[in-house]
Every structure is written in C-alpha cells, then in structure tokens.
C-alpha cells in the first residue's frame, strides 16, 4: 500500500507546494482546506501522515487534532504541524495531543522532506 499523506491548510499555495514536494515520491496525496474538511478526509482515507496548519477558517488545527484524537482509531496517527504560529501555548497544547514534529513557516522544503521521511517510508518514483 502506498503511503497516504494528507495536507490540511487553508492556503492553496502551501498545499500546492507540498504536492510539488511529494510528487517525485511514491505516495497518495490528499488535501483539505480547513479542519472540518480535514476530519472528513481522515475518516474516509485513513492517511499515514497529516501535515497540519493551525490558523484556518471553519475549524482550526488544534480543534481538528483534539477531535481526531478522541477516536481511538486515530490516537496514534502521525501529525507534523506546519504553521506560522509559534506561541508556547499552542506548542504545548499540540504536544499534549501528540504531534511528531512542529515546523514553523517560513520553512526549508528539504528539511520538511527529511522530517516526513522519518515518519513515512518514501520511495522515489521511477523516472518515466
């Protein structure tokens, strides 16, 4: 089964950037524009990794994470925060909710890729 990566961010730019980052690898990519949509995709696709923003309309990242963790099926689902938010309170809160890593924006794409690879096994697609 190819690893499934879900990116949840209200910025189309970030979602496209991540898509571009992971396209050279064998994986299935999913997107959501807010926490609410994110929850729906999680329930439907059961991804192997979530890259999660904090500041989003409808439902923010912390609320989404909290609700997701209430489901025993997703208690251990790896999450990497990718957000412009860097306050200690938010960091503490998401740490309690169990996130693998916390990347602040602006970010180095290569560094993010390294962090992702530590969580999901990514293999390069064969050159067409």
């Amino acid at each position, binding site marked *: 089964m190819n690893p499934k990566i879900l990116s949840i961010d209200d910025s189309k730019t970030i979602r496209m*950037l991540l898509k571009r980052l992971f396209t050279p690898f064998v994986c299935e990519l999913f997107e959501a524009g807010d926490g609410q949509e994110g929850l729906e995709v999680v329930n439907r696709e059961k991804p192997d990794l979530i890259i999660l923003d904090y500041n989003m309309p409808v439902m923010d990242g912390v609320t989404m994470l909290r609700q997701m963790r209430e489901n025993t099926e997703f208690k251990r689902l790896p999450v990497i925060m990718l957000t412009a938010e860097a306050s200690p309170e938010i960091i503490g809160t998401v740490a309690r909710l169990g996130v693998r890593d916390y990347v602040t924006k602006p970010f180095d794409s290569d560094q993010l890729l390294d962090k992702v690879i530590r969580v999901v096994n990514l293999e390069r697609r064969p050159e067409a």
Partner: protein
Amino acid sequence: MSTSTNPLGDLSAASGRALKEVFAKQLKLQIFESPVSDALPSLEGKLLHSAVSINGEKISGTVLLQVPEALAQHVTEIMLGSEGDAEEIRDVTGELCNMIAGRVKAELHASGFPATLGTPTVSIGQRIALQLRGESQLSSTDWSVEGDQSGDFNLQVQIRIIS
C-alpha cells in the same frame, strides 16, 4: 518610524528580520533594505497588496506587503515550480504576507503582546500607505531583491496598543 524605547520594540528591525527569514528560507532569495524610499520606480505602477491583521488583547494592527506584479510572478514560480495563473499569484502573495506577519507576531509575543493572525487579503492597485492612527507605531520599509532589477517591494507594519 518607531523608536526602540517603546514597549513594542523596533518594528522596522522586526520587519527586517521577518522579511529576511521568509525570503531566505522559503524563497532562497537575499534581500536588502533600500535607504531612500522614493528611489524605487518599480513601486510606482500597479502593485499587489496583501494585508494580514494582527489582533490581541493588548494590540491591534496590520502587516501590509506591496509587490510589483513581476516580482509576485517570480516568487510564484519559485514556490510552485512553474508559472502561476493570476489566482495562484495572488494566493502566493497572501501566503508570503502570512509568513512575514507570523514572524512579526512571534516577536511581539516575546515582547509580551500575544496575538492571533487574520486571513490574508490580496488586492491590486496603486501604492498605498497605512495611516498612523492614534497611539500606534508605524514602520514602512522598502526592499530590493538581490540580483533582481524589478524585485523591489514595500512592507508596512502598523501596531496600536489598545489597552
């Protein structure tokens, strides 16, 4: 221009740090501050403006980024890997302002002024200048991207202490 003795700190310096970090880390571009504000002709035409509001219990303000279309297109190419359409260019400009505002906000938080960011808005038009309202600090700085003749842009940060 803000002074360094006020509680918010030096907004111009904070702007500089935020911009340099965003441009270097996300876009891998070097930038430098332009000493004289009216020596940048590329900031005279149509510009893309992106604004993000900063709101906290003690402060309220705006971060405004203004870039000429050519620079916005260039930045979009870097972020997305290919030429973007009008919508993508606007979105990239907004996200850039979001990141810059995020760094400014982090510094304000460390100075004792926690706040949240609003959603970026993007519009096109002539150069605009934020007004100093009441007890607010305003910083307006012009910048150039190294090696890019049309890579000039302006950043304004206006913060008002509300309590």
